C-alpha cells in the first residue's frame, strides 16, 4: 500500500470540500482532497436549487445565518476569479394572500438582524412588473437584491481545478475507509489504495460526514438526508421567471419555488422529505406531483408539457442541531468538521472555507501564504454564448469548434476535448455533461450520446463499451453486436 504524507487531508469534493481545498491552496501546505466518486461534485452539489441566497431565512445567531450573508457577499468575486457564471438576479418571496404579508415583514426583520443588505417589501404592481408570469393573485413580495444564480457543480469543479493548479493533490475514486487516531490526534487517513499520514483532517463528507466523524469517535450528530425533487423545463421558457420566486417559507424548507437557472432553464422544486437511506435519489410520482401543483400556485402558466427532466437531490441535514456542524471533533482537535452543510450550504461554501481555515489555525496549523498562488482559473472556452464574429475566430483557431456535438445546447467538439483534458480528470459521460452541458438540453442526450462516447473513447484511449455514465457498473454499452455467443440463440423462437 502506498503511503503519502500530508499537512491536511480534506475528505469530500463537493462544493464545501473543494472550497476548503482551494482556500488551503493559498498557503504553504501539502493538501490532499480525497473523494470516493470518480468525479468531484457528485453528491449534494450536483442536485440542488443552484441559488445564492440573500440570507434572511436562517435563525439569527446560527452558523447558517452568519455564513450565508458572508458567502453571498464574496460570491461575485469568487465566481469572477474562477470563471464560473454567477447571475446577480436578486430574489423574491411572494405572498399569495393578504394573511401571508406579515411573514414578509418577519423575514425582513430577520434579514435585518442577519445583516442582509437592501431588503424591502414591494407591492403587487412592482412585483408584477418585475415578474409578469407570477400568479396575479399575489399581493406583495420581499425583494432581496443580493441573491443570485450560480452553477453549483461548475463552481465545485472550478474550485477543485484551481486548487489542483495551486498544488493540491486530488484523489478521485478514493473512499475513506478508516482514520487512524493516536492519543487523541488523527495521524492518517486510509483509502483502499493509499494511506495518507496527515497532521490535520477536514471532514466535508456531506451525507456521510457523520460516518466520517464516527471514525474518530465523534458521535454527537447524525446526518438525516432530506430529499427534494425538481422538474427542469425547456430553455424556451426561461423568460417566465427573472429571479427565484419563493413562496412564504414553512418550518422545514423554503418551500417549492420557481426559478430560472444560470443556463436559462426554468426549474421548479424542491419538496422536502426526510429519509434514512443516503443513496435513495429516486424521484417519486407523489413528490413530483407535489412539486408541480405547488409551483403552479406560484406560476399558473407553467409550461407543464415542456418539462425536459426531473431529478432528486438530498440535503445533508445535521441532527440534532439542524445547523452546520463546524469545528473540531470533541477530544480530537486536529479533526475539523464542515458537516451538515444543507441549504444555504452552496451560498455559504466560500465562508465555510474561511471558518475551517481559522479552526485549523486555532488547532495549531501554521498558515504561511504562498507567493505563487494564482486565484484565477480559466474555464472551458464556450462557443454558444459568443457573437458570430467571435465564433468564426474560435473555429479558425481550432477547427473542432466547427463541429457541433450537442445540438440542443450548442456544444462543440473542442469544448468536449477541453473538458477531457483539464487539471481534474473527467472520465464519465456525466462528468462531460457537467463541464460542457452536452446532453443537458431538451433531447436529454438522445442525439449527442454516440458522438460524446466516440470522442471520449478517442481521447481517453478506451473502447466505446468501457465508457460509463458515472463510474462503477454504469457502462453505457454492453459489448458489440454480432457477439457470437449471444447471437447463436438469436431467432430461435422465430
Amino acid at each position, binding site marked *: 500500500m502506498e503511503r503519502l504524507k500530508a499537512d491536511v487531508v480534506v475528505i469530500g469534493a463537493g462544493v464545501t470540500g473543494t472550497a476548503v481545498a482551494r482556500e488551503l491552496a493559498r498557503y504553504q501546505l501539502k493538501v490532499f482532497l480525497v473523494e470516493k466518486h470518480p468525479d468531484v461534485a457528485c453528491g449534494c452539489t450536483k442536485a440542488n436549487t443552484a441559488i445564492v441566497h440573500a440570507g434572511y431565512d436562517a435563525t439569527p445567531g446560527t452558523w447558517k445565518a452568519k455564513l450565508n450573508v458572508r458567502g453571498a457577499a464574496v460570491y461575485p468575486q469568487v465566481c469572477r476569479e474562477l470563471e464560473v457564471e454567477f447571475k446577480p438576479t436578486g430574489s423574491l418571496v411572494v405572498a399569495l394572500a393578504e394573511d401571508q404579508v406579515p411573514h414578509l415583514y418577519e423575514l425582513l426583520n430577520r434579514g435585518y438582524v442577519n445583516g442582509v443588505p437592501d431588503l424591502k417589501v414591494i407591492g403587487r404592481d412592482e412585483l408584477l412588473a418585475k415578474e409578469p408570469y407570477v400568479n396575479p393573485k399575489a399581493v406583495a413580495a420581499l425583494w432581496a437584491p443580493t441573491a443570485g444564480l450560480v452553477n453549483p457543480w461548475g463552481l465545485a469543479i472550478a474550485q477543485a481545478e484551481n486548487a489542483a493548479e495551486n498544488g493540491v493533490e486530488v484523489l478521485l475514486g478514493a473512499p475513506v475507509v478508516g482514520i487512524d487516531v493516536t492519543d487523541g490526534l488523527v495521524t492518517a487517513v486510509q483509502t483502499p489504495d493509499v494511506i495518507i499520514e496527515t497532521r490535520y483532517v477536514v471532514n466535508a463528507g456531506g451525507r456521510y460526514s457523520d460516518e466520517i466523524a464516527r471514525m474518530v469517535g465523534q458521535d454527537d450528530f447524525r446526518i438525516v438526508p432530506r430529499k427534494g425533487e425538481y422538474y427542469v423545463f425547456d430553455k424556451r421558457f426561461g423568460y417566465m421567471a427573472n429571479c427565484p420566486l419563493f413562496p412564504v417559507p414553512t418550518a422545514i424548507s423554503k418551500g417549492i419555488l420557481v426559478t430560472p437557472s444560470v443556463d436559462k432553464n426554468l426549474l421548479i422544486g424542491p419538496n422536502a422529505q426526510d429519509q434514512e437511506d443516503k443513496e435513495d435519489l*429516486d424521484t417519486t410520482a407523489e413528490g413530483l406531483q407535489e412539486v408541480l401543483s405547488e409551483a403552479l400556485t406560484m406560476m399558473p402558466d407553467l409550461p407543464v408539457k415542456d418539462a425536459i427532466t426531473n431529478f432528486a437531490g438530498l440535503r445533508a441535514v445535521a441532527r440534532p442541531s439542524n445547523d452546520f456542524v463546524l469545528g473540531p471533533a470533541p477530544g480530537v482537535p486536529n479533526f475539523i468538521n464542515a458537516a451538515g452543510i444543507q441549504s444555504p450550504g452552496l451560498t455559504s461554501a466560500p465562508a465555510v472555507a474561511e471558518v475551517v481555515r481559522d479552526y485549523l489555525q486555532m488547532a495549531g496549523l501554521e498558515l504561511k501564504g504562498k507567493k505563487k498562488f494564482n486565484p484565477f482559473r480559466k474555464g472551458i472556452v464556450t462557443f454558444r454564448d459568443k457573437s458570430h464574429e467571435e465564433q468564426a475566430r474560435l473555429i479558425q483557431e481550432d477547427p473542432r469548434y466547427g463541429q457541433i456535438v450537442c445540438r440542443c445546447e450548442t456544444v462543440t467538439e473542442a469544448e468536449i476535448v477541453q473538458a477531457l483534458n483539464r487539471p481534474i480528470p473527467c472520465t464519465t459521460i456525466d462528468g462531460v455533461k457537467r463541464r460542457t452541458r452536452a446532453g443537458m438540453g431538451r433531447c436529454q442526450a438522445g442525439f449527442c450520446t*454516440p458522438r460524446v462516447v466516440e470522442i471520449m473513447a478517442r481521447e481517453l484511449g478506451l473502447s466505446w463499451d468501457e465508457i460509463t455514465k458515472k463510474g462503477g457498473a454504469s457502462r453505457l454499452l454492453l459489448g458489440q453486436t*454480432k457477439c457470437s455467443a449471444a447471437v447463436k440463440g438469436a431467432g430461435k423462437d422465430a
Partner: protein
Amino acid sequence: MRSIKYDVVVIGAGPAGLAAASRAKAMGVKRVLLVDRDREPGGILQQCIHNGFGLHLFKEELTGPEYAYKFIEESYASGVEFLMNTMVLTIQPDRQIYAINRKVGMLKIEAQAIVLAMGCRERNRGAVTIPGSRPSGIFTAGTAQRFVNMEGYMPGRHVVILGSGDIGLIMARRFTWEGAKVEGVFEIMPYSNGLNRNIVQCLKDNNIPLHLSHTVTKVHGNERIEAVTVSQVDEHFTPLSGSEQVIPCDTLLLSVGLIPENELSRDAGIHIDPVIGGPVVTDEMETTLAGVFACGNVVHVHDLVDNVTRESWLAGEGAARLVLGQQPTRDLVTTKAGSGVRYVVPHKIHVENLATRTTTLYLRVLQPEENVRVELVSGTKSLFSVHQRVVRPAEMVSINVPPKRITATAGEELMVRLVREGDKA
C-alpha cells in the same frame, strides 16, 4: 466570414430535404443547396435498416438506406449541391443563414427561399416523467437504433420497452435478432401506437408480449438499470395500486413519441401550431415567414416516409415557384380540425390551387374508429367526403381532393371532421 448565395437552401438532408431539393432543381431552379449536420445525407433513414419503406410510392418494400439512396442519387444527378458536416446556427427573417463547419468556419448563406427539413427528435424520460433512479441503460429507441445499426454496439441485452411506437417495435425485433432478450412492450394507451404489421412481424413473430394500458412506474438501480416496476393504468392513465410488477432488465427503451425540431423556426419568428409542434403552413408548404417553407417531420410527425416525400415535393415546388415568380395568387382558405380530428395539415390552401391540382389533406384522428366518413365542411355545407373503413391515431389519414372538386372563396374556413357512416351530419 465567407458569404455565399443560393436560390433555394434546404436545411436537413433526410428524406424531406432530399425530396424538396431535387424537386426544386427539377422545376428549373438554378442553384439549390442542401445543408446537413451529418457526414452523409439520408438523415435518420440511414439507421432504419428494416424494410417497409416506399410501399406506397414505389410498390416495393425498401429498407431505410435503400430509400435514402434513391433520393441521394437523384439529388446528385439533378445537380443539387451538398454542404455536409455543417450546422445551421440561426436563420434570420431576411433569409440569411449562419452555419458552421470545421473546414470553412462560419458561413453566411443568403437564400431566396429556404426549406426547413430538420425532422424531429424523440420524446424522452423527462417528457413522460418516469419516477425512480437515474442509472445508465435508459435509451430512446432511436438512440439505441443508432448504436446497434450504425455503430455496432449493444446498448443492452435484457430489454424492457415502454411505448408501442414503431421504432420501439422495430427495435424489439432488432434486439432479439442480435441475441438479446426483450421482456415485453408496455403501452399506456388501450391501443397500440404502432403499425399492425410491426406488431405482427416484430412482436408476435418473436413471442414478445404487448401489454396495453400499462406503464413503467419506477426505475430501479443506481449505476446500471437493474429493473423496472410496471403497473396497469386506469382510463385516466393513473397506475392501479396492487398491479405493480417488478421486471429485472439491464435496459429500458423508450418509444413514446416524436417532437418536431423547430428551434431554428421559432427563433426566426415562424408561427408554430402547438397541436402539431410544427409551423403553420400553406398547401405550398410555406410558413408564416414569406419565402421559408417546411416539410416532413419538422412540420408534423409522419408514420410513413412516403407521405414525407410527397409533402416535401410540394415544398420543393413551392420554393421553386417563389424563386421563378410563379406563386399562386394569395387568396387563401383556412382548414380547421372538426369533431374526431386532432389536426389537419396544411393550415391554409390557395384557392387557385384547389382549381388546378389535387390537394392532399393530412390529418390525424383522436381515437380509433371504424366505418367513418372524413368530411370537408364549409359552414353547414358538406363539400367533399371520403369513406374510411378504419382510422387509428397512429396512422395518418390522407385525403386527396381532385382539382375543381370543390370551390371556395378567400377567407372561407374548411372544417374537416369525422362522421360515422349512417349518422346524419
